[in-house]
């Protein structure tokens, strides 16, 4: 199975990183979350209801819709917060945050379960520093428009109706969905990020090269 990969790029000011990432990640998760499954006998199940919530950004002229789940929001905010901390405050830089949807495939002992991604969204972020308030105001509007375009891109991709995991049986639901939340049930996902220094080289790439070089000696 080929994993579908989509890349989104945005340029934002330092203080806009949080909201820009939240907007895009929540937009994706809105489409990749369902209500809680309630299985019944005979292999049937019913699905709970997903609520939605409008969120206004403070530093960007933009509003977005997210799933009404404080738990999910906390998880995403935590990940975005770590990403922003890694990017540094107030400094130029580039980074990439990835939202990967995967399925678990049970393996026999002693092997651990395999995680097979089926969709990966990569958001490349370019953080810029602005000199004055006028530029910041322009940036507010421009980034808002840009995020709007990205939302349209996300929707276009999702509505191509490509691969989605099959609806699992009760015993396999945890291999497809994240059932840890109380109110909604997103597909299994993980968020990772990597930071690129100003020279354009990825820190992880550099480390990998170092290790390879060391082993080659």
């Amino acid at each position, binding site marked *: 199975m080929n994993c579908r990969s989509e890349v989104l790029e945005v340029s934002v000011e330092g203080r806009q990183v949080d909201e820009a990432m939240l907007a895009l990640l929540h*937009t994706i998760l*809105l*489409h990749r979350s*369902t*209500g*809680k499954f*309630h299985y*019944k006998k005979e292999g*049937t*199940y*019913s*699905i*709970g*209801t*997903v*609520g*939605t*919530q*409008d*969120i*206004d950004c403070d530093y960007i*002229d933009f*509003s*977005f*819709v997210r*799933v*009404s*789940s404080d738990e999910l929001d906390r998880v995403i905010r935590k990940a975005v917060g770590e990403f922003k901390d890694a990017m540094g405050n107030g400094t130029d830089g580039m980074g990439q945050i990835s939202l990967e949807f995967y399925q678990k495939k049970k393996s026999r002992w002693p092997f651990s379960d395999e995680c097979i991604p089926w969709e990966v969204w990569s958001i490349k972020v370019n953080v810029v520093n602005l000199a004055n308030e006028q530029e910041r105001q322009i940036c507010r509007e421009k980034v808002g428009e840009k995020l*709007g375009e990205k*939302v*349209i891109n*996300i*929707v*276009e991709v*999702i*509505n191509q*109706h490509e691969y989605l995991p099959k*609806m699992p049986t009760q015993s396999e639901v945890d291999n497809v969905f994240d059932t840890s939340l*109380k*109110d*909604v049930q997103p597909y299994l996902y993980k968020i990772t990020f990597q930071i690129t220094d100003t020279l354009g080289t990825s820190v992880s790439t550099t480390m990998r090269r170092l290790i390879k070089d060391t082993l080659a000696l």
Partner: protein
Amino acid sequence: MMDSDLSPQDKKDLDKFIKFFALKTVQVIVQARLGEKVCTRSLSSPTGSDWFNLAIKDIPEVTHEAKKALSGQLPGIGRSMCVEISLKTSEGDSMELETWCLEMNEKCDKDIKVSYTVYNRLSLLLKSLLAITRVTPAYKLSRKQGHDYVILYRIYFGEVQLTGLGEGFQTVRVGVVGTPIGTITLSCAYRTNLAFMSTRQFERTAPIMGIIIDHFVERPFGNMGHMRPCNYRAPGEDEGAYNGVEDSQEVCTTSFSTSPPSQLFLSFLLFSLFLTFTLSLPLLFFLSQLYCSRLSYQPPVLVGAADFCHPSTLNAANPHQVTTQMGIPGKEGGVPQQVPVQPCHGAQAEHGRVSSCPPADHVPATPSSSGEGAETLSRSIEVKGVSPCDVLETTFTRKVGAFVNKPGTQVTTASLDLPFAAFAPRAYDLEENDPMVQPPESPATSSPLQGSLHSQGSGESGGPAQDDFVMVDFKPAFSKDDLLPMDLGTFYREFQNPPQLASLTIDVSSQSMAEDLDSLPEKLAVYEKNIDEFDAFVDTLQ
């Protein structure tokens, strides 16, 4: 289309899905243009009444308008359902902002499972619609609507009309869902040129189906909405052959019927009646006078209220007070099994306070709904609801005839408990009392509650005997005139009719213009002399 390949049950399910998808689409679009944030709660346990497993509340008037436009038909090939969003200014100019189109083409997907895949994809499409409705330019405009303009919607069925969007309009496709009878597409065409056409003459446009919001327009009692007449337009309404879908009666009775008032509604009505009689008729009259007077100070957008349509239910208060029906959980794939149920709340009107994210109870039993009965009884005065706060206020302002003019000799002897009497114009203006000539001193203020209590007492003892309609001079709320010669009420009274600005009179303006022109060379010389200072100042700004 090969309907014969579909089983009867699948055909029936598909028609139902398409119908409710169309209704939910309209709800999402209209609610996104209300001007406020929408918030619904996730529910882990299925209720069976939330179509497509999404918490999208139903504004009854919007559903009514949508069903009226559909007239028992479904969106199909050559029959598109469109929601047109337009802007109307307080001057009466209007402009189409966007048109959302739900269409179907002939491309069929015969292998797709109706009850599962189509249903889930329609759910996904609704989520996409939620996201896209916040991205088009009309969203920001709708969030800022108020005094200067309002956002309106119109639903029509038939051919898509995009000519009103001006040149260079953009199109965004929300998504597509293939079905065995055709492919459903949802798209939006939005205007990019927001300048009004200079050649476009103002004309009374054909009636628009529903006004969305004037939520932020100042109202006499804060959060109260008001009823507006509804003008309907149905061009392009397809009155062709009935397409065979069973009348909405069967479908509606299962989950989405606009049913007669429920018991809850009746209890609110009774409570409101009780409140009304408790407060007595003079209070009602007082309120009517108050509202009528306040209307004269409303911005033009409200003066032209008759041009706007119903429903006030599109006030942001409503989404949180609409009915959701209960049903039994679905057995397969989360499809709700429909059963006839009693609606929780059959209210047609909007009420009470607005909250951007209320608890998403399926039974919106909010205290503010108690105003419904008052509204029913006070329809002529367009007071939407008597909130507990307002009840408290009006209890202390029982004096009637607050806005009725009375000779000045009675002013000083009139009771003090006539709040909001300042809204009534005075019959005469004396220059010696003209605040523009002799600015009054600040009146002694007391706490509103104290003032109200006092005024009630004094009103009962010292006021002239009067019935509900006796002419009295007005007294401002919470203000006394026994300490100062010029009180707040007099100041307000005078201020209502200020003299015309001197600069607007012809003689004065022409004279001042000449003087201004004469003084220009001197001013320019001074500025040139100080040019260095100005340059230095500009540099500090950069």
